[in-house]
């Protein structure tokens, strides 16, 4: 199984197994205070060659700047082959996670809930304090 797209979107709607998304990629959020609970819409598209991955499971995991897991979404599904060499599956989950500090968070797709076995390189998501000047690290 491979990841074709992992993005934070402004909005993402799925209809008949295809996604309409706006404002991709969202690369940062501003928060007014910490701690705070943030929910972000994601676009996830995976594909795999036919002949395997019939009952896959994956975990979308958000980690804080220290690498601590702050939010997880699990997906498991039955994935029969189509009449083609490859198959696709797409998701538009809402990922919620706790923000206790500003900085660079990551969102990744993993084989395990502990986020030790990545399926693809995690994407960065910067969390800034609203009104903070560049260079002040959100302080």
């Amino acid at each position, binding site marked *: 199984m*491979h990841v*074709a*797209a*992992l*993005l934070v979107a*402004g909005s993402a709607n799925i209809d*008949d197994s*295809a*996604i*309409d*998304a*706006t*404002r*991709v*990629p*969202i*690369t*940062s959020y501003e928060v007014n205070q910490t701690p705070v609970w943030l929910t972000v819409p994601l*676009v996830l*598209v995976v*594909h795999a060659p036919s002949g395997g991955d019939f009952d896959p499971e994956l975990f979308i995991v958000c980690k804080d700047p220290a690498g601590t897991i702050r939010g997880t979404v699990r997906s498991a599904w039955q994935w029969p082959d189509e009449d*083609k*060499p*490859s198959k*696709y599956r*797409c998701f538009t989950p809402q990922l919620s996670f706790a923000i206790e500090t500003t*900085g*660079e968070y990551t969102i990744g797709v993993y084989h395990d809930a502990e986020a030790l076995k990545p399926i*693809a*390189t995690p*994407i*960065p998501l*910067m969390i800034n304090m609203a009104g903070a000047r*560049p*260079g*002040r*690290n959100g302080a």
Partner: protein
Amino acid sequence: MLHVSALFVPRSAAFNEQGAINATSIPMAWFQVDQMPLWATVPVVLVVHAPAGGDYDPEIHVVCKDPSGAPRGSLRAAWHWPDDGNRASKYRCFTQELSFPVETEGEYTLGVYYDAEGKFELSTPVPMSILLAETEQPADDGETTFSEPAE
């Protein structure tokens, strides 16, 4: 090290005023065409990111390969990529149309490579099946893009 966050063919894609992308029908996993050979044109969305401190002048290529693995079309992206303020990472997104000849049915792939020939892979290519419609239809003169995909 530059990473690919997304590579897909949507039905349509356009930049908004802020430089982000709005896209519909992600992903277009397959297309049906009325005739072959033809010259196909599809929109491509590519999003990459990299840690600050490197990749200041990257060059990458999106290459379409036919079912036999032969490169059939490519897009080149080369840009100056300064670090993004004090952020630990930087992003860049692209949307552009890719044209390539379709001479045979089967699974084509789109991939991001360091070279235009598609030899040095940056991430796993994404598949895109192209099928010939079963019912014979008259040729549409001047039409160079795909027909609507069958659901």
